[in-house]
């Protein structure tokens, strides 16, 4: 099952938990095949809810548009959830959805998953600001994170073309809690770095899925990424960690990520550059490379010898 192939579609199940009385939507897809390998928690980014990114059901194009289906066919129980401010979770107009808010969400979500399934520490994957949020879970609850994958991550923001552009609108982000999303904006995610990398046959389904859940999204992570980086302390991330960096991704300078990587204290760490990929690796033409890198990192044999 390590080769690219169409995964059997897993049947999804919704769950609900809450933070401060505000509801949070979770989506579970259980293992359909393969040896039992553990649980993955997928964490979404700034501009869309969870299922469009992690459980996209595209009727056309290459197989495996849902990374959750792909991993359930390879031995994993998989979960994603909508942060407050997104999708089916609480979306009060006052809610900004900062990274700190995301950390609270992750605390509640991981607590719910661990108690509901008794699965033990999870493999956590976050993309873009979802990676920043996932890293906060690893910092605040290291006992809940078995292995951590940070895709399209940014540390200090030094040398980031995307954030340089985004900062020009910082006053606009700060003047409201939410901003509109539309097809043109979502399409820009796939074209801003290097046109041609996105999986053209999936993008319409992706845009449709995002807009079915949200016509606006909160500004918290945009503000944090423009004004408040760094939001993670790599020295506090004790889980084995992989940095997944798209070749063309403008969200971070390469050296910024290398500096972060150097500071990670666990020697079980990897840095993978993904050829032909910009931002949003799971909706790219080369998505299989991202899936494979994640699978291999989450299934590394445990060390027999741990030193000293």
């Amino acid at each position: 099952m390590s080769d690219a192939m169409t995964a059997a579609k897993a049947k999804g199940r919704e769950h609900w938990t809450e933070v401060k009385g505000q509801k949070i939507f979770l989506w579970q897809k259980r293992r359909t095949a393969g040896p039992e390998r553990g649980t993955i928690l997928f964490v979404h980014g700034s501009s869309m809810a969870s299922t469009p990114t992690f459980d996209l059901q595209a009727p056309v194009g290459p197989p495996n548009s849902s990374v959750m289906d792909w991993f359930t066919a390879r031995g994993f129980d998989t979960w994603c959830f909508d942060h407050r401010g997104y999708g089916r979770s609480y979306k009060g107009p006052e809610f900004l959805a900062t990274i700190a808010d995301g950390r609270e969400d992750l605390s509640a979500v991981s607590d719910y998953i661990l108690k509901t399934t008794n699965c033990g520490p999870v493999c956590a994957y976050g993309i873009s600001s979802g990676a920043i949020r996932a890293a906060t879970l690893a910092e605040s609850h290291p006992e809940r994170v078995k292995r951590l994958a940070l895709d399209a991550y940014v540390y200090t923001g030094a040398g980031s073309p995307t954030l340089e552009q985004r900062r020009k609108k910082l006053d606009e982000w700060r003047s409201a809690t939410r901003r509109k999303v539309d097809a043109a904006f979502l399409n820009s995610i796939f074209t801003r770095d290097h046109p041609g990398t996105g999986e053209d046959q999936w993008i319409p389904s992706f845009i449709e899925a995002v807009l079915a859940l949200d016509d606006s999204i909160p500004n918290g992570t945009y503000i944090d990424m423009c004004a408040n980086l760094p939001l993670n302390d790599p020295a506090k991330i004790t889980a084995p960690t992989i940095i997944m960096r798209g070749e063309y991704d403008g969200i971070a300078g390469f050296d910024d990520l290398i500096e972060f990587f150097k500071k990670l204290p666990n020697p079980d760490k990897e840095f993978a550059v993904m050829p032909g990929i910009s931002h949003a690796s799971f909706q790219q033409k080369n998505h299989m490379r991202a899936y494979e890198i994640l699978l291999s990192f989450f299934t590394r044999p445990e060390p027999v010898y741990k030193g000293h």
Partner: protein
Amino acid sequence: MNEPGIAARSRGEEHWTEISGHKLFLWRKPRTDGPDRGTLLFVHGSSMAATPGFDLQAPGTSYVSAMDWFAARGFDCWTSDHRGYGRSYKGPEILATVSDGADDLDAVSRYIMAKTGAARLFLHGTSSGGLRAALFAERHPERVARLSLDAYVWTGKGSPTLAERKKKLDQWRASTRRPISRDFLNSIHTRDGVYAVDPKIVPFYMDAVLALDDSVPNGTYIDMCANLPVNDPKRLTMPVVIMRGEFDGIAATDDLLDFFRLLPNADKEFAIMPGIAHGSFIQANHQRAFAILYSFLTRSEPVYKG
């Protein structure tokens, strides 16, 4: 076949070629299982011939050699003794520099490609075998599909092992060969301040090394002490993985990350191997090294190439 386990032992074959009239020994273990994934050539380091590191047989233990393990996962596995080592030509005048090693790989790769019809090879080099493999890849990028550099060193800056080794540079330069012994081989296993090797297989390993050589040439030691860098990362145009043992003193992590930054192909990975010092394939955690190499060599080809 992704799980660690005992692979079916592949039956080995001897092959021979030559360079400048000097014979070169090659050892092949053909694919025993799995889909055909290509041809993999393992390149040995400074202080031992090829088969002790890559095809170690340790009866009565669960250890499976790298060549058997990869042969059971779809690879046609090859290795060779560089001139100066093992069963290859060992005239007393042979210094076996890194450049000589890249010349050997030219002849070896020609032979393998002619014998098997392979258009390109996967290369895995360990320690100075990484330097040899990389120099060969610089000279013949068209022959290398993907390149793995394990226990590699680039400039040598910040390397505790090389700082010690440099103290004996005059000694290395005074002759073409140096004697090796169990004490010396043990020093490789202890010099990084940990004992990360698998103690059950160490006796088999030492027997295998010393059955082939009671001395080894000094060329790579001299190069690593006096002539680094011998590789230019900008000329390595193929996909590359750097495999770095947590405790390996042969290079500083920053030296390797500087090298990694300069690799021009965006298909590149950097993996730190926990609990591993130098010589990953005979370490207690060798399964991690095998898994990293396997996953890198089996990455799907990008659909979009920019």
